[in-house]
């Protein structure tokens, strides 16, 4: 990538992360995950997509389309929500991937 991309590459590599959401005590319920951006290291602030929280909303996803809502407080989600953030180069071991991962990605030969 040309020199012009240096700052963007650094910003991307240093702020990119993944966020996974699961239900306390119910690992079999699976987990939801998405990507995110580290906005600040100290205090640690991460912004990610809201889609992974819909299964945990006390009032259901309808709360997201309530007319005026632009913000919902953190306690809009149930207490059983467990969140984890991973960022480079810190990631779980492959074994942990198996638990977290979605089944069945494969690499068919072209």
């Amino acid at each position, binding site marked *: *990538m040309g020199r*012009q*991309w240096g*700052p*963007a*590459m650094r*910003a*991307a590599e*240093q*702020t*990119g*992360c*993944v*966020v*996974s959401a699961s239900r306390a005590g119910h690992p079999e319920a699976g987990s*939801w*995950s*998405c*990507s995110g*951006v*580290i*906005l*600040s*290291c*100290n*205090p*640690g*602030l*991460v*912004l*990610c*997509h*809201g*889609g*992974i*929280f*819909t299964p945990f909303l006390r009032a259901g*996803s*309808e709360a*997201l389309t309530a007319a005026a809502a*632009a*913000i*919902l407080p953190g306690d809009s*989600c149930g207490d059983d929500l467990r*969140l*984890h*953030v*991973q*960022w*480079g*180069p*810190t*990631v*779980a*071991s492959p074994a*942990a*991937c198996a638990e*977290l*991962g979605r089944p069945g*990605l494969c690499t068919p030969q072209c």
Partner: protein
Amino acid sequence: ASLEPGPPDPPVRPLGRPLQPPRPAELLLLLSCPAFRAHFARLFGGEAAEQWRFASAALDDEVSEDDEEDQLRALGWFALLRVQPDQEAAEERGPALAGASLGAVPKGAPLLACGSPFGAFCPDIFLNTLSRGVLSNAAGPLLLTDARCLPGTEGGGVFAARPAGALVAFVAAPLCWKAREWVGLTLLCAAAPVLRVARAALGNLYPSAAARLPSEVGVPRDVPLRDPGPLWAAAAVLVECSTVWGSGVAVAPRLVVTCRHVAPRETTRVVVRYFTPKSVAVWGRVVFATQETSPYDIAVVSLEEDLDGVPMPVPAERFHEGEAVSVVGFGVFGQACGPSVTAGILSAVVRVDDTPVMLQTTCAVHGGSSGGPLFSTRSGDLLGIIASNTRDNNTGATYPHLNFSIPITVLQPALQQYSRTGDLGSLRELDRAAEPVRVVWRLQRPLTEAPQSKL
């Protein structure tokens, strides 16, 4: 390796750096950008809604209606989390992140997306994968890019080359399908308005944290709903012919070229809209359209008044496979926005008797782009007219990134003659294209020579 079973070596990420476990986090708040949701409702709601899918999975994957409803409701929503501070990381990381002001990045500008396909499935392999594209279109904070993103990259950051390394947007929906066609574009929400909502909300809850959010950089332009993008892109026009609409390109102050399947019948009156950047409508009349039997899907519209302020493109004389190219067309948003810009390379130039008769590109081209211009990104020269993309009749799959254009060198002499003399003779020659040219546009192999009889 020692004989004694020691602790397993920590798995090494391709970068060769030791890995650490994930960190617990706490949800501070869910936040959305009302302007994004309003533009989304305007552009993708109403009667257009049934055409659009923003699946986080492939179109045919089993996604329950409830889940799909949830995904659609959450599309413009983001979450702010608090993570235990990581002092070491804080020291390691470079300068604080900056957010690009809304409108600071023009249409057509290159973008870098960073996300993790399939989320936390296997970060060893997929964490922070990069993808490049351009800003294809903008309607307020609702942005489109042709950088290809996959499920799991929702929430990932999109960065600009200028302002250097600025955070431009967050991925809102990586896969967009229109009328069951994958359109090869990714839906983004501009970062600046989301960060403003976060700053206001945090200001009440955690003032010290609010101060740590990225500041804005870049000259905030009041984003015209129709940012014209690169200068040469302004030559792209919208052509409305009764209920059909498509794209076109101005080739002279009162002459527009489009596709025959957009404006099929001569003498028909059409409306041509151009955006410089305000939207202006001009009446015109189809003065020429090739026959159905012609391989060249072309129509020419003569306008009743000049295209004010529209830069006339320079027609290219040569084509260089592999060169960076851009397509400008009204696919996806049609009349509701200015044209979209998608980027790629000139992937093939098909010649008959050493004369270019077909161009192929890797740009994302979809319904509504027909008739639009193909430009050389470097010079801004007009290379051709977009005619079609590719569908596999066996599977029904559409490939937006394989598309076909008519080289401008095929049309230019005839257009010049018509402009000078009003004589359609040269344009009529397009109906008499040689058989090898017809074979090419039927996507068959040009016969190199007549098969020899064995007798």
